[in-house]
């Protein structure tokens, strides 16, 4: 330690410097606050118009109504969410039948079987699936998938149908399942695998019996994220699924047990929540009308559902994560 009588100025109290530091810090903080404001703005925008809508249409009626016709030709305006929910569920579940098994197997292959070289090629290629614009997927479904299915498997299929839209949504969400699941599987420590081999397990047994259970929280959260993405998907269903809000016909099997024939739903056109919103934009957009407000009520429903699913996915990934 030297004994200096004149201590250097370490306090950085220079006026201009302080002003400059403060200005830049403030600018960056302002940018960060904009992201918070975006969330607030989404909430307020959706809520303010949705409240007006719910004043005219009670929430209970909105949630349980089985008829959706916001712009009827001859009166009889009705805002029932159930047919839209059914359409959304059909697409989401059918898409999950593709994305979940394919995505999980892909993740297992990438994490357990693939050579580093193959992985470095496959991973970016898979991301392409999520990068193709969704309107292009919708076009593919309408123009190529539907005619192909019609020519081979389902001759009675209608031009706009839920099945080909769902197939495309499923393919689009594969990378969502595979990349998050693969991250979770790669995080499983090698000791667990080696212990499995030490006990005489085969590679198949180690993959399915050790790695998958050990990373199950990450896998589950990837499923939820993929499903939430499928729920919010718009362009594929708008282009390929048509726009007819309908309740599926309930048939009667033997002994009068009611059932719904999946073909009635999958091979016909339908309407999801997102399609309903897009359809209303064809009309008046300056605001003030009931259909305009109903769009925001639908948006609020969608926003809340996807938000809740994301939060659940976060909680699962955090709480049930195995700590190593």
């Amino acid at each position, binding site marked *: 330690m030297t004994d200096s009588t004149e201590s250097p100025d370490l306090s950085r109290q220079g006026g201009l*410097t302080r002003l400059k530091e403060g200005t830049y810090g403030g600018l960056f903080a302002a940018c960060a606050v904009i992201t918070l404001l975006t969330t607030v703005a989404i909430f307020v925008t959706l809520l303010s118009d949705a409240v007006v809508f719910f004043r005219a249409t009670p929430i209970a009626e909105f949630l349980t109504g089985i008829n959706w016709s916001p712009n009827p030709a001859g009166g009889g305006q009705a805002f029932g969410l159930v047919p839209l929910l059914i359409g959304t569920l059909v697409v989401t579940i059918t898409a999950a039948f593709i994305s979940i098994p*394919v995505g999980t197997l892909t993740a297992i292959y990438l994490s357990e079987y693939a050579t580093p070289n193959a992985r470095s090629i496959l991973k970016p290629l898979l991301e392409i699936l999520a990068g193709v614009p969704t309107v292009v997927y919708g076009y593919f479904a309408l123009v190529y998938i539907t005619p192909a299915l019609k020519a081979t498997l389902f001759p009675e299929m209608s031009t706009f149908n839920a099945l080909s839209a769902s197939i495309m949504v499923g393919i689009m969400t594969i990378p969502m399942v595979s990349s998050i699941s693969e991250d979770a599987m790669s995080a499983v420590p090698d000791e667990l695998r080696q212990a499995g081999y030490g006990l005489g397990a085969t590679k198949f047994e180690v993959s399915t019996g050790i790695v998958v259970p050990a990373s199950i929280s990450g896998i589950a959260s990837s499923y939820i994220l993929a499903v939430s993405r499928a729920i919010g998907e718009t*362009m594929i269903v708008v282009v390929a699924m048509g726009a007819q809000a309908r309740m599926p016909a309930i048939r009667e099997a033997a002994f009068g047990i009611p059932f719904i024939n999946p073909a009635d739903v999958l091979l016909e056109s339908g309407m999801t929540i997102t399609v309903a919103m897009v359809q209303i934009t064809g009309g008046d957009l300056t605001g003030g009308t009931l259909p305009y407000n109903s769009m925001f009520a639908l948006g609020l429903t969608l926003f809340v559902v996807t938000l809740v699913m994301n939060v659940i996915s976060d909680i699962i990934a955090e709480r049930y994560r195995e700590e190593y």
Partner: protein
Amino acid sequence: MATDNANADGFGEVSRVRGIVFEYLSLGASVFGLVALGVLLVYVSIDAFDLANASPVWLLTYFLTLVVPFLAFCLYSANDPAVTRRALGVLGGGLVAVAAVFTAIETLLVPIPRLNWQLAYLFVVGAPVTAYLTYVGSGERVGAVGFGFLGRLLGGAALGLAVGTLFLVFDSLVWFLAYTLGVVPAVALYAFGSARSVPQAQTAALPAGLLGVVAAVFLRGVVPTYPSDLLIYLWTIAIPVAAAGAFAVAERRGRTAAAVVAGVPLALAAAGGFAAAGAGLPAPTVLLVLVLTGVPTAVYVSRVVDAGEGLVGFALPVLLVGGVVAGALIVEALGVPAPDPWLDPSFLTEAPSQTPTEAGLYPAIVGSVIIIAMVAVLSFALGVGTSVFLEEYTPGSGPLGTLTRIIQVNVANLAAVPSVVYGLLGLGLFANLLGLGIGTAVTAALTLSLLILPITIISAQEAIRSVPDDLRRGSDAMGATRWQTTKNVVLPEAMPGILTGTILALGRAIGETAPLIMIGAATTVFRAPDSLFSRFSAMPMQIYVWAGFPQADFRYGVVAAGVITLLIILVGMNGTAILLRNRAERGN
């Protein structure tokens, strides 16, 4: 496999069948989506280019004049006998295999629509081999020079067209004043400050520039006469670009070479601009394309010539152009019927129409370019600002730390909000409440900026986080303030990563359709937008509208051409992003 040791005495034998089946099943699953997408892309390109009507002779001609020389170039560049053997083996064996399999399927099972075995061969064998050889060839010196040269020519032309497009909406006179009064003095002050070590001059540069820009906006209505557009672009864009090129060369070669490298393309571009004005072409765009192609190319050529390696690579563009010309001549001479592609130059330069053969994408392309330019600026600024704040400015604990965590969770949640909800935000907030107008370019740009902001922030954060802490501590130790550390150390290091993430996010924005529908973007616009507040269309929007037309010519022709255009632009953007990242990784 884990069961290899199962045969020793005293151990039970384990069946390997289950494991092998599972491995191949999961491999199949990994490529399932890719194969599906690949098949769809094959069909959409066949439709867009009308390849179903291409006769085998036509295909063979272009294969021989265009594809074979290109492959030969790549093989020459790779200069590896093993690669050559492998490529020739796959090309030859694939020909036999594809022909046999295709014929077998057609005769035994089902006829395959709109595909013949020659086309199948081109897509299944030709395209992957070409991609592989391009990858291998571009890794060596000759190929790197060839593709670098070609990339600068194409990229410069695309950039010139895009900048020219922007001036359809942005007032070039305001830009002229802002450049003259704001940018030039600011740059001069800053350069003076650095050269003479006068920090005050450097600090004053930014306020002086802002003052000049504000003055420009006020003076726009006051100043009565302006130079012509061509002179404005020459002064505000061509000369600075040439100066930057000269600067890059001067450091290495000295002033004479710099003057030649920058001066020749500038003179050529100016001459081209005036000639175009005389010929009635859009002179400013010609000038921009020429100068943005010429200067980077000239700088690149001078660098390669200095290095003296791989000069043969410059033959690549000649090879390609020559191949196209030769192919056209041979086809003409043989009288082979040529296909009539939907995706041709007139598709890109004409307005939409009810008649399929006359329909074009021009106004939609202009709309997309304008929106993406605004989104790029907005989301880059906001994304970098937010990520710098989150990574550099906030402590991990205390009330500010809590705020950081809230913002972090919030960004993650915003990334998962469906795009259609952002559309509602744009409609309710920007279009109606703030009165920016339904379906205007401004509303669309703001909406899409917010939409991709979370992706930009997350990738920028990753880039900033990957800057080693030692660099920050080193800067701190020299007495730098936080902003100085950020500006001089963190941002330059992280910039390639940030740019890569931003370009990838922009790729997402360019394909988004649902928000545009929600904010009421026009379904069909016949003229390119002329102001930020005019109604506009965008490429994905136009594709959506056309896909709804029932005529087969639209479904299988016009839309396919639009889809291919959109995908080519996307591939170009993402390719640029990946090149940036690779170059940064190599630099480290």
